[in-house]
């Protein structure tokens, strides 16, 4: 009841309340604009006070995000947003902490912190803007760029094998792993809300178009003409179907996923039913990662790959402290300083 009363007397927030007075400096047409808009759209729906929200970013185009969001924020240093956020969340479990990072920031220079944050399971939301390129430094290939990518630092094509961010997050035992894209506002909003609602580290990879240095990198999944055939939207407890008329489906042949056609005799009853709680299935579907040019490739999945419940780091940290205080009482400084053995000199 108390909550209801507070809610009604508190000023109701709107997306506008989350805009700042700072001029937005992303390139016109950048996918970041859409992500910012979707975040501002869902923030008022969370029932949080503005002062209890913190956005922390590293370095890169996406990392300008905090300047444009009227909450507490920190634009930290390259790759370290996840570590800054870990310390903040450990110290202040009461805050809603959001991390904005990119494929370079979060998977290259900050890759180490990303995996450790995920295994520790701080209750924070990671928004990983993946544009498969270094934008702010003007167009070098990134750890998610596909092989053979011609970029400023790879004039003859990249020989780096790319990360599969979803598989990486699963490998680090993330408790919430999802993928969305800048050009599907409804899906992105839904995924942002799911990320927020998850207790523990939420890893949300967002395909984001860099129209300057890597334009149309994700066009197969975002353009109307190809989206239905190339993007697979996972829905809990529903069969995996895609195609213009949802005529195609994924069936498991042993552990091997195969595409079947429902219009050519395959039965819906034989299809893979998506289950976010199933780690084995999540591992398999995270591997739907072939380049669209690859003959016989599977569609790229979007939605929640995996979600599980595990105590958060900050909960356990606080519990350990409470437990020790319950057993031993609050610490007495004089006793601590005196230590074990003392002697008196008259």
């Amino acid at each position, binding site marked *: 009841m108390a909550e209801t009363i507070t809610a009604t007397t508190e000023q109701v927030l709107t997306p506008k309340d989350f805009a*700042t007075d*700072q001029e937005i400096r992303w390139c016109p047409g950048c996918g970041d604009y859409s992500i910012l808009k979707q975040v501002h759209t869902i923030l008022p729906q969370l029932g949080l*006070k*503005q*002062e*209890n*929200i*913190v956005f*922390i970013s590293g*370095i890169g185009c996406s990392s300008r995000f*905090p*300047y444009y*969001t*009227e*909450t*507490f*924020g*920190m*634009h*930290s*240093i390259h790759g*370290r947003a996840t*570590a*800054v*956020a*870990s*310390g*903040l*969340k*450990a*110290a*202040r479990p*009461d*805050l809603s902490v959001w991390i904005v990072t990119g494929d370079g920031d979060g998977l290259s220079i900050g890759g*180490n*912190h990303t995996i*450790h944050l995920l295994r520790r399971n701080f209750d924070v939301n990671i928004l990983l803007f993946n544009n498969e390129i270094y934008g702010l430094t003007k167009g070098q290939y990134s750890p998610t760029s596909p092989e053979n990518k011609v970029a400023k630092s790879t004039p003859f094509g990249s020989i780096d094998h790319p990360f599969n961010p979803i598989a990486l997050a699963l490998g680090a035992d993330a408790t919430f792993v999802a993928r969305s894209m800048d050009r599907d506002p409804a899906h992105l909003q839904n995924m942002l809300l799911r990320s927020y609602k998850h207790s523990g580290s939420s890893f949300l990879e967002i395909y984001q178009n860099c129209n300057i240095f890597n334009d149309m990198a994700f066009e197969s999944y975002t353009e109307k003409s190809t989206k239905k055939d190339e993007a697979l939207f996972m829905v809990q407890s529903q069969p995996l179907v895609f195609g213009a008329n949802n005529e195609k489906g994924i069936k498991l042949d042993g552990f091997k996923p195969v595409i079947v056609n429902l219009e050519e005799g395959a039965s819906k009853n034989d299809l893979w039913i998506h289950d976010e709680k199933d780690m084995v299935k999540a591992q398999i579907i995270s591997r739907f990662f072939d380049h669209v040019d690859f003959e016989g490739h599977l569609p790229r999945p979007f939605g929640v790959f995996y979600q599980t419940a595990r105590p958060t780091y900050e909960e356990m*940290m606080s519990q*350990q*402290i409470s437990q*020790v*205080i319950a057993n*031993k*009482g*609050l*610490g007495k*400084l*004089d006793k*601590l*300083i*005196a*230590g*074990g*053995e*003392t*002697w*008196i*000199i*008259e």
Partner: protein
Amino acid sequence: MADQITIQELEEAVIKFAGDSGDGMQLTGTQFTNNSALFGNDLGTFPDFPAEIRAPIGTVAGVSGFQLHFGSKEIYTPGDICDVLVVMNSAALKANINNIKKGGIIIANTAGFDAKNLKLANMTSNALEDDSLSNYQLIKMDITRMTRESITDLQLGMKEKDRCKNMFVLGFLYWMYNREMDNTIKFLNEKFGKKPEVLEANIRVLKAGYSYGDTTEQFTTRYKVDKAVMPAGTYRSIMGNQATALGLVAASKKSGLPLFLGSYPITPASDILHDLAKYKSFGVKTFQAEDEIAAITSAIGASFGGSLAVTTTSGPGMALKAEALGLATVLEIPLVIINVQRGGPSTGLPTKTEQADLFQAYYGRNGECPIPIVAAQSPSDCFNAVFEACRISVQHMIPVILLTDGYIANGAEPWRFPKESELAEIKIEFAKPMAEGEKFMPYARDEKLSRPWAIPGTKGLEHRIGGLEKQNITGNISYEPENHEFMVKLREEKVDRIANYIPEQKIDSGPAKGKLLVLGWGGTYGALKAAVRQLNEEGFDIAHAQLRHMRPFPKNLGEILNNYDKILIPEINNGQLVKIIRDKYFIDAMAYNKIQGLPFFKSELMDKIREILK
């Protein structure tokens, strides 16, 4: 026979226990230290161990030593060279033979001088049998055999039995120095209470060592080192890293701020993390990060959230933290960075001491990035120094570097510890909530030039900070040329103004004006003080001052430097403070440097000073 034994009174004594890494020499030394402290001696200790956890057994590389200097007079150092050297094997003798005074006592475990051990130590002849030790009083005993014999009936393996042999040595030295053994028996009870056989073995061997002294007619002299005259009060024995951990908890309590430590294990700083991890009943949060960078950046996050945030490390870790130190400087938030210095560069000498990170603390970042620096001068002083570092950090909204070193971090001394009520409050105030329509200015400043600490959760204070150059007052990003110059100067001025809030520099020993000032910083305190005091007694007109505040310097330092004909700056590095002093005060300060991973000896400092004054 007992009545033929004479008791010789000594003002001070230096004992070194040396053996293989697995021989338990650190424990033996610590026990004798605690015993001496409880008895009322003043003392200083110096553990000296290899970087390898278990270097090859019996080799010189694997020798672990513990030196203890105790006395009935004031003791400032662990002693230059020892009066008594205990060696458990050939390698220990080889490693320490230059570390004992002529005529001193060598107690050697003969079992450690068999053909195999001699070979492992690369010794061609058995020093216990040839004439090479004729300048010393050699006491040979088969410690291994006597240890085994005193516990033959116990159901323990030979390895476990042999592990007790350090207790034989300890018992024998307790006899030699007329000591009670109660504290060690109590310690053994606590340590081995759950393993009755092991407990029994250790106590029996300890007593056997004592009885050996008593019943063997071989020994004619015992020693007595009286209680020291020390200021009245309650004392405990303290090591530097322990004192640092306690000082942090004290600063947390006195500021009312929750303590957060982000740290990554590194020698010789890890003990601070270990200690703080135990202090959960004080609400301390310790976070063992995935690397040095996460250690400091997590602390930055915690500080943003309103914690007293700390990160602990040593030189290589400091190098990794450099970028984040710049971030904390631009963010202008509190953060205490503790560097327990060790020998460098690179991995260097992890277990050996050095003062070679002063330049790193001064200059080791990109851009103009001044950071205040505080240095601790002795094991117990780590408490005061870290307390001061915390005070400056939270009151001035600025990262502060505390420099300690491996020597004081692992050294021990008696400490007349303070009561909580005697410690000053550290007053801080978070920024208050703002009313509707008011605009919060995150980079507005007070007379200290410090900005408000505005923590998340406070209504109306929503703001964004970051590593991009800030506009003063608003905190907005600014690329304006004049603004950058202004902000660089302002951050420098902010550090300089701290000088208005720290004590003036004092002369520690000697006259206020004179021929020579010996100016030191950090862990060289004890050796410099001991050397200068002794020379004062000999009639030399010299003084000693030790810097606690390395940046900014106390306001009167320039004036002090002008009061002496000559300035000598001894450092355990290749000359760092001396260059900063020359640069800042345009004086012809002289350097005296030792870069061996070892602290100064009093004697070498005295020689140097005498040479200068010739």
